[in-house]
């Protein structure tokens, strides 16, 4: 005979009941199913800070297109060279000064790239080799005005190219910035 009354649980049975999980999670997709149904019924208006996915995607596309348009390469525009010369007023400065100047030019180059007008840019070493017809071989040197760097940019008009060259930070070193259009209809 079972000594227990039907209403009594044994300790073991109580323990087993206590161990049962009181909370279980359905599939996460159920929440959106419910919300979609409520929206369909007009019982939900949508949160003010929850943007529908299609609106977010459209906004991203719009912004991306605008950024691309602003930065688009001006492939049909003529090319200009901006040449940086160590002309007589040029002061190379200390190693730290040169490093600072290089960094300033790198930032300017990045800005031109972001504007979509930069074709290429590069720094040049101070010393090179001079080749002429009347010497037996090349002579080490860099000519009267050593070329220290160059930029190749695109600009729709000569005025636009001049405006770009005028902004070149190399001038602050005392050097000269020379703007020349690339020949041959480029």
């Amino acid at each position: 005979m079972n000594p227990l009354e039907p209403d009594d649980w044994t300790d073991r049975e109580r323990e087993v009941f206590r161990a049962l999980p009181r909370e279980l999670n359905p599939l996460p997709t159920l929440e959106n199913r419910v919300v979609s149904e409520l929206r369909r019924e007009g019982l939900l208006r949508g949160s003010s800070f929850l943007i529908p996915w299609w609106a977010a995607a459209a906004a991203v596309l719009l912004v991306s297109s605008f950024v691309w348009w602003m930065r688009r390469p001006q492939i049909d525009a003529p090319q200009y060279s901006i040449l940086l010369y160590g002309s007589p007023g040029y002061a190379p400065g200390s190693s730290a000064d040169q490093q600072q100047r290089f960094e300033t030019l790198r930032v300017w180059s990045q800005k031109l790239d972001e504007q979509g007008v930069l074709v290429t840019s590069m720094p040049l070493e101070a010393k090179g080799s001079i080749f002429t017809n009347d010497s037996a071989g090349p002579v080490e040197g860099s000519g009267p005005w050593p070329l220290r760097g160059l930029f190749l940019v695109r600009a729709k008009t000569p005025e636009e190219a001049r405006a770009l060259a005028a902004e070149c930070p190399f001038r602050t070193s005392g050097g000269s910035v020379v703007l020349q259009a690339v020949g041959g209809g480029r």
Partner: protein
Amino acid sequence: MSHNERDDSDLIAAFVARKDEAAFRALYRRYTPRLYAIALRLCGGRSADAEDVLQETWIRAARLMHGYRGESSLRTWLTGIALHCIQEMRRRSGREEPLAPPQEPVHAGAPSIDIDRCLARLPEGYRAVLTLHELEGHTHEEIGEMLGIEPGTSKSQLSRARAAMRALLEGGRA
């Protein structure tokens, strides 16, 4: 204050007044795990049925939320709706699980799985009162209200449910 920290009445007010989706989602996330556990047990472990019940429960709750006055806790109110949904589902499907002894030892594996397996073998009425009383801690008055029966009926059902449960558990040990 985030939606998760707001109390039920604030969230209900935001949902009813502004159809605020974030408030509804906060309520859903707060109560669904508990409701789903009940539904899953009362549906005999059939997760697809339990999810259908949950979906219907929340839709009905959303329709009726403006009339909720807080006479019972929101959990009890929602549980009552879920129980009605389960009863309707059973009526529609004509599904009835027979009382049958388990064929394999019930204490061989994890206790929670074993007891859930036994629960699933109980007749629906027994399963309901056992789940609501032993697991959810509802009183016989609350159970009576939710199931549409007298509290005394709930009490006697529970007594018989316990006996049936014990028979199933002991049958599994044999």
